[in-house]
Every structure is written in structure tokens, then in C-alpha cells.
């Protein structure tokens, strides 16, 4: 496995060595820095400002207290993150492991949010500890999710994505209800490197030095991880403790950096990979060159940003910018990774037992759905407390019925999309959200809300569809060569989702009051549905479900692996493309109504499986029913729990879904 998953060294240009890459970046950085000093007080004074607290001249003051510390901080943070990235990639034997992809940053984010709302005293004690605790917990969760699958690369990255999405959903709930109180954290979440003295650099430097020292000490044992499991064990090394040590160190380094400057995306992923592609093989060399390259990469990006983005009235945070730049890099990297080909997935055995009479089960589910729908339509709180409305109360039902219908329709569509994608990829953690189609349409919608004056709902729908189709086009373009190989497909989704997260961070960090609207939509509510759009959603659900039904044969065979499917006469490429297109349509239609953050697509197929729907056709029907049931329930609960405030259905569904996911870990 380890040699398979490394980027293919022979594909790298021969002339590029790690040393040359660093030299190039170093020269660029020096030139930018010199240009800045030259434009300011001049070279000599600029250099003296580094060492001594200057007089009262404004430009040297800024140099001493802001510019130089910022440069130092960029170098430190970049180096620290790159070092952490190498450690993670080495321990997990996974070139796609990085501090942000494994949930450390979003855990730290949620920890800080919760602390500033519930226990601000903790922040006064030291936010780095809060951030560290949150990050550590999130990463622990990722490992729990992936443990049973032997921390295999794709599963770890996907667990990271799911944890990122889940923690992101939780953070979204907090943001939705406490936007004013959390606006400062939004800047932190986008990773601004601005400094106002040397104290942060002084905090970070000794901790990173300690981390680097420990990394050197771990160097020899960590090299053992390059051997296979049996080989390592025969050398008498405790793999478990070694992994824990290496990852613990990586989390510590990341936590320190993140607590000081906020979330900086992709340096920890990019630097080690660039160094490896440039030809550094041995762990020692990779550690040294990656740290150097990461430091220079972040500092150069930051210098460029300071030079060209300083004129805007809003802040363009460096961390989110690197993340946005990193997404294309990841997309470029994906076709260059070897992921273990078309072997059938390990957990192809069915979860749950097959129900003897799926029809009866489905009928039961349908009756349950009907019951919940009646309750959701008629029971609810009003100004005078709980009421049971009469079915003839058109005044009230005009609000409830469209939402009910839309929730059910979205549930059906996401469930079917989830079933398709899980069967297509034979991966139990795949879901339409993971493909990045939701992310694509979310990016487009954010653009519309911010760039168009008072956009109407019709415009938003159009723009959102366009975004979803663009994401689909990227998916197809990147994966065309590999014949839509499942693992690659999912990684493309990870990259698109990362881009979405980065753009969201930049948009929200500015503190524009319209950010509220973005948050409200992103959290996935049926709020904006009216009778017409509910009708459209229901019709789309019906049509697309009918389109999915005839594909059941493919879905029965594809989970057996590419080779088996091809042997049984399925044109793999065509089948995968067709299914993918259907998934994209289903996801886009549902996302436009309930937003990008729902776990229904993940959850419903699982639950249907557990209930005993085994064959593809039954699985589709069961998942559709479960999905509709879940969404209707989530929508109704969300409207009642905090009445009169409404928790968006998408968030309630993700919270339910996340809980289920944790519970289901034991079986995975």
C-alpha cells in the first residue's frame, strides 16, 4: 500500500529538485521583501527596524511591530504546518493527509466558538489550549471512524471530510443564532496573519522548535513505517505507540499554529507533496525540505497578498487564500496519485440482514411516513402554545404544506443520490455532499448574494444550478482519464468542498451583514419554499426516481468491483458517467432547497440497508422512504424545538445523521 499511494516520482520534471524549488521561492520572497522596504523608509532603516524598537516615525513603527513579525509568523506557521503535514503523511502513509483535511482545524474552530459562547473565561486563560483540545478531539474522532479499516488512506480522508462537515454544521448552528457574538472568530477561521507585536511569534517559536526537535528524535522510528506492517513488527517496534506519538506531535504543531493565526489551509498538504514530487525520498530530507518550502510558500503568498489586496476595504485573509489556491493543486494531484486500482473493496459484505418481505417493510415505512406527515402538517406551536389544526385550516396549511412537500422531495432525492453513489463507489461513507456538487452550487450562490443587488429567488435558483453543473464538469474533466474510478471521484469532491470552505471563510470574515443570509441559506432550510417551488421539487423527485429505477441491475453489480462488473458485460465508464450525472441532478435539485449540509444522502441508504433492504431496487425504494421520513421529521422538529426560532431542517438532519454515524461506527 505505501508505495502505491505515493505520487509517482517519475512524472515529476527532472530538473526540479527540492533545493531549487526553495531557492526559487526564497529569491522571490527576498525580492518582494526588499521591494517593500525600499518603497517604505529605505533598506537600511527597514533592517534596523527589525532589531530595535524605533522612534515615533509611523512607517518604521509599522515595520517593527507589524511587518517583520508578520513575515516571521508566516515563516513559522508555514514551516510548522508543513512539518505537521509530513508527519501525518508519514504515519498515515497517505499523501492526502493534512492538518485541515483531518478535522483538526474545524475541531479547533468549534471549540473556540463553543468556548466564547458558553465559557469565555476559558479563552482568557489561553485560547491555544481551547483550540488544541478541540482539534485533538476532532482528530480522535476521525481515527475512530477509520480505525476498523486500518486507517487506509481514502477512508481516513473521507472520515476527515465527514467530521469536517459535521463540525461545520454544528458551527453553523452556533453562527446562525449568535452571529454578532462570533464575528471575531470568523476572521480567525479565515486565517489572518496580521500581527501587532512580537508576542505571538515569541509564543510560537519555542513550541515549534520543540516540535522540530521531537520530530528529529522520532525520525528513525518513523522510517520503520515505510515498511509493511509485518516488517515493522519484526523489528520490535510498537506501531500503535509510534503512530500515536507521530500524530500527537503533528496535532500539537498544528494546534499551536492554528491557535495563534487561525486556519491556514493546504500548506501542510502542498509542501510535503511538492517536495516529494521534486524528488525528495528519504524521510529526513522530506522533513527538512518540506519545512523550508512550507515556510517560504506561506511567506511568499502572504507578501503577494499584502502587496495586491491591501487596497480593498475588506480583509482578504491569507489562510483562506492559500486554501483556495490549494484546491486546484489537489485537483491537479489527484490524477497523479496511485490509489490501488480496481480491486473490490474490502467491506463488500452486506451490512444488516436481508428482510424476508421487503414489500411489507416498505409498506410499513410508507404508513409511518404518512403518519409523520399528518403530524407535521397539523401539530405545531403558535402564539398561544401548542395547537392541533383542523385539516381545513387553509390559512395555516398554506405555510406548512409546501415545506412538508419540499422536505419529503429533498429527502427522496438525496437518499436516492446517496444510494447511487454508495453503490457506485462501494464506499459506505460516500454521500452526495462528498462529491462536491453541493459545494459547487453553494459557491455560486454566495457569489450571487454578494455581487448582485437584491437577487430574487428565481435568480438564485438559476445561479445555484449553474454552480452545480460547473462542479459536475470539473468532476468529469478530472476523472475522465481514470474512467471515473470511485476513490478518485471522492477525492475530487474533497477538493471542491475545500474550495467552498475557503470561499465561505473569506466571505464571512468580512463581517458584512449579508453574511447572515449566506449562513441562513447554507444551513439548509425549507424556509424559502413556496407552493410553486414545492411542486417543482416534488415533480423532480418523482421524475428522477423513475429515472433511477431501471439502473438497478448496474447497482447490484457495481459494488462487486470494477473487474467483476466488466466481466459481467457492463461498460464501466458509461455506467459510471450515467449514474454520476443522475447523482448530480438529484443533488443539485435538493441542494437548492435544503442547502449543502445535510447528511440525509449518507444516512438514508445506510438505514435502509440496516432495515433489511438488500437488493438494489428495494434498497432504492427503502432509502427513498427513509430519506423522506427523516427530512419531514427534521423539518418539523427544527420548527418546534426552539420556537419561534427555526433550526433549519438540513442542520437537524445533519445532527441526527451525525449521531447515527457515530453509533454506526461499531459496524463499519
Amino acid at each position, binding site marked *: 500500500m505505501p508505495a502505491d499511494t505515493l505520487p509517482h516520482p517519475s512524472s515529476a520534471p527532472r530538473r526540479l529538485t527540492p533545493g531549487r524549488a526553495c531557492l526559487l521561492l526564497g529569491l522571490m520572497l527576498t525580492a518582494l521583501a526588499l521591494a517593500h522596504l525600499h518603497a517604505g523608509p529605505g533598506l537600511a532603516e527597514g533592517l534596523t527596524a527589525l532589531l530595535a524598537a524605533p522612534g515615533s516615525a*509611523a512607517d518604521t513603527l509599522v515595520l517593527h*511591530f507589524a511587518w517583520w513579525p508578520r513575515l516571521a509568523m508566516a515563516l513559522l506557521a508555514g514551516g510548522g504546518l508543513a512539518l505537521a503535514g509530513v508527519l501525518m503523511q508519514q504515519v498515515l502513509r497517505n499523501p492526502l493527509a493534512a492538518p485541515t483535511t483531518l478535522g483538526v482545524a474545524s475541531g479547533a474552530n468549534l471549540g473556540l466558538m463553543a468556548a466564547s459562547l458558553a465559557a469565555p473565561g476559558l*479563552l482568557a486563560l489561553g485560547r491555544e489550549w481551547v483550540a488544541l483540545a478541540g482539534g485533538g478531539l476532532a482528530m480522535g474522532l476521525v481515527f475512530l471512524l477509520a480505525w476498523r479499516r486500518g486507517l487506509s488512506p481514502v477512508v481516513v480522508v473521507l472520515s476527515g471530510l465527514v467530521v469536517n462537515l459535521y463540525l461545520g454544521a454544528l458551527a453553523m448552528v452556533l453562527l446562525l443564532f449568535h452571529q454578532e457574538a462570533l464575528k471575531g472568530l470568523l476572521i480567525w477561521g479565515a486565517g489572518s496573519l496580521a500581527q501587532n507585536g512580537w508576542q505571538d511569534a515569541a509564543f510560537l517559536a519555542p513550541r515549534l522548535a520543540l516540535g522540530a526537535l521531537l520530530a528529529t528524535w522520532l525520525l528513525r522510528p518513523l522510517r520503520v513505517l515505510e515498511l509493511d506492517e509485518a516488517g515493522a513488527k519484526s523489528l520490535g517496534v510498537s506501531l500503535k505507540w509510534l503512530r500515536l506519538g507521530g500524530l500527537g506531535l503533528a496535532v500539537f504543531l498544528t494546534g499551536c499554529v492554528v491557535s495563534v493565526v487561525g486556519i491556514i489551509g493546504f500548506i501542510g498538504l502542498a509542501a510535503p507533496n511538492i517536495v516529494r514530487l521534486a524528488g525528495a525520498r528519504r524521510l529526513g530530507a522530506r522533513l527538512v525540505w518540506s519545512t523550508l518550502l512550507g515556510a517560504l510558500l506561506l511567506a511568499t503568498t502572504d507578501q503577494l497578498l499584502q502587496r495586491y489586496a491591501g487596497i480593498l476595504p*475588506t480583509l482578504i485573509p491569507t489562510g483562506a487564500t492559500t486554501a483556495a489556491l490549494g484546491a486546484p493543486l489537489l485537483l491537479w494531484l489527484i490524477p497523479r496519485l496511485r490509489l490501488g486500482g480496481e480491486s473490490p473493496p474490502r467491506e463488500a459484505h452486506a451490512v444488516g440482514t436481508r428482510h424476508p418481505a421487503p414489500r411489507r417493510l416498505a409498506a410499513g415505512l410508507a404508513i409511518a411516513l404518512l403518519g409523520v406527515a399528518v403530524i407535521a402538517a397539523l401539530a405545531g406551536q*403558535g402564539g398561544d*402554545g401548542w395547537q392541533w389544526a383542523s385539516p381545513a385550516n387553509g390559512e395555516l396549511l398554506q405555510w406548512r404544506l409546501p415545506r412538508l412537500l419540499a422536505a419529503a422531495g429533498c429527502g427522496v432525492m438525496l437518499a436516492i443520490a446517496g444510494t447511487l453513489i454508495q453503490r457506485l463507489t462501494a464506499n459506505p461513507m460516500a454521500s452526495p455532499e462528498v462529491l462536491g456538487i453541493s459545494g459547487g452550487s453553494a459557491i455560486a450562490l454566495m457569489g450571487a448574494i454578494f455581487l448582485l443587488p437584491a437577487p430574487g*429567488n428565481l435568480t438564485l435558483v438559476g445561479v445555484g444550478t449553474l454552480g452545480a453543473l460547473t462542479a459536475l464538469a470539473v468532476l468529469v474533466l478530472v476523472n475522465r482519464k481514470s474512467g471515473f474510478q470511485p476513490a478518485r471521484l471522492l477525492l475530487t469532491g474533497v477538493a471542491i468542498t475545500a474550495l467552498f470552505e475557503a470561499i465561505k471563510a473569506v466571505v464571512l470574515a468580512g463581517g458584512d451583514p449579508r453574511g447572515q443570509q449566506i449562513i441562513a441559506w447554507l444551513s439548509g432550510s425549507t424556509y424559502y419554499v413556496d407552493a410553486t417551488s414545492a411542486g417543482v421539487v416534488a415533480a423532480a423527485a418523482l421524475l428522477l426516481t423513475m429515472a433511477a429505477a431501471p439502473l438497478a441491475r448496474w447497482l447490484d453489480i457495481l459494488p462487486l468491483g470494477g473487474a467483476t462488473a466488466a466481466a459481467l458485460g457492463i461498460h464501466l465508464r458509461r455506467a459510471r458517467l450515467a449514474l454520476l450525472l443522475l447523482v448530480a441532478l438529484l443533488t443539485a435539485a435538493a441542494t437548492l432547497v435544503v442547502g449543502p449540509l445535510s447528511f440525509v444522502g449518507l444516512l438514508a441508504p445506510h438505514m435502509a440497508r440496516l432495515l433489511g433492504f438488500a437488493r438494489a431496487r428495494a434498497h432504492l425504494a427503502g432509502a427513498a422512504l427513509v430519506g423522506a421520513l427523516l427530512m419531514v421529521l427534521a423539518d418539523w422538529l427544527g420548527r418546534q424545538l426552539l420556537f419561534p*426560532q427555526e433550526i433549519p431542517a438540513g442542520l437537524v438532519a445533519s445532527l441526527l445523521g451525525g449521531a447515527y454515524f457515530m453509533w454506526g461506527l461499531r459496524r463499519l
Partner: protein
Amino acid sequence: MSALRRPLRRRVARPFVAVLALFFAALALLCASPAMAAQPRLATLDWTVAETLVALGTPPAAVAQVDAYRAWVKAPTLPDSVTDLGLRTQPNLELLASLAPSRILISPMFANLTPRLERIAPVDNLSLYSPGRDTWTEMRELTRRVADIVERPEAATRLIETTESRLATLGERLDEGTPPLLVVQFMDARHVRVFGDNGLYQAVLDRLGITNAWSGTTNAWGFALVPIEALIGLDARLVVVEPYPAGVRTPLADSGLWQRLVAESRGAPLTLAPVWSFGALPSAQRFAELLVAALENDDAR
């Protein structure tokens, strides 16, 4: 599934029932409170409109996010009888419809809700802080439009006159030598919102005859988000509008840049109680009162 359900039910059911009972008790208490006096029943999603309505003597029957209004706008206070509509971006439509308001007042930010709200009552969209328009003129217009909606134009005249004459008095009370001011609000230990053109604070400073030291660009809401270093070299006195976010004061005390900024500025920074920075006349007057009081207090020392 049943394996999950059984322990869950045992663990969750009892506290859940207790919470539910408490909830209904609270709800019953709420419903027992006296009904509102007969008035045009207005609902608004926008806090700026809400504060204007209160100042005009015709408080709205329903406002979105009442608790957050009380935390961030503070004054003028909403009556206890006001109904909370839920989130500003997603007010509870069933509740709103059941209140049967005579009109619903919104600002352009919520324009995408208009078709929905119009099914409940006529909707008025009131704009403030439009780019390129004089903020004070717009505030006066907003006040008049709101007063026309509640059919009390004389109240608008009165509010505008008292606010303007109060600001004039406050302006006269200031020394000739009041230095230019730099109005900031901390976002975290390294970033501030600095307020300038097209904002409430700027409009008040103008009327008080005080120079705003920030002449840089601002966004449509009258502020720019900047790192602290952007404030260096401006010859001004700092005005910090509270609240300080949690955990900001300590790192700020350690910050060399902030210390130098304070040392180089014209006098110690003034700290003002929270004022809604996107408000209308009532918030404007509150800001003026707080600012002038802080300046005078400082002179007395």
C-alpha cells in the same frame, strides 16, 4: 435499530418530559401576560426600524431576534409585550401570520422575503445607508417614512427636531480643541472595524463638528475591517466601542503595536458602551451622548 432505541428512550425520555413540562408552564405564563393596547399592529425584521418605531412612541408588536436586540441595540428598549419572531433572516411565518399585523416593515437586506411576507400583510421596504447618499438625510427620511406608516407624521418632526437640537447642544458643549477621532470596535486582538464614510458614527461626528481621522475606504455599511497596524500614523484620539470580544484584553495589553498606538495618539482611548452601529436617529443620539460624556469626563480629570 431497536438496540439503539431502548437505552436511548430510558435515558432521554424522563428529562425530556420534564423539559417539556417546564416549557409549557413557561408558555402558559407568557400567554397570561396582558394583551397589547389597541394600535396599528406592526411587525418588523429590522432592528433599525424597530428602534425608530419605539422612539416614535409606536413600538412594534413583533420584532425578530428580540434577545439579540436587547444585547446589541440596548436602547431604546422594546416593550415586554413584544413578540419574538425568531431569526431576522427567517422569521417564523406561521407565528407572524397568526399575529395578523397590519403592516410588515423590512430593510433591503430582507428583500428576498417580500413575496412571502406580502401574503400576510403589506410590506414596506425602508432603506438606510444606501451608497452615495448622505446618511443623515437618509435617517431623516427613514424616520418620516416610518412615521407616515404609523400615521403620526408629527412624531417624526418631533423626533428629528429633538435629536438635531440635542446634537447641536452636545456639539456646543465640546471644546474647540477636540482632536480628530478614530472610532473602532475590536473583532479580535488583531483586527478592528474602523468606522468611516456612509456610517452612523460618521454622521454623528459630522453633526458634532468633530473630524473623523479615518479617511480610508469603507464598505457599504460604513466600516472597514483592518489589522491594527492600519491605524498607525493617524493623528487622532481612539474611541473604542464596546463590547471587547472574550479574551481580547490580555493579548492587547501585551501588544507592542497597540501600546505604541495608544502612546502616540492624542490622549488615552475613550471606551463607550455598546451602540448599534447600523442604527437610526435613536442610536445616533445615544452615540453622541456617550461620546460627549466620555470626552467631558476625561477633561474633568
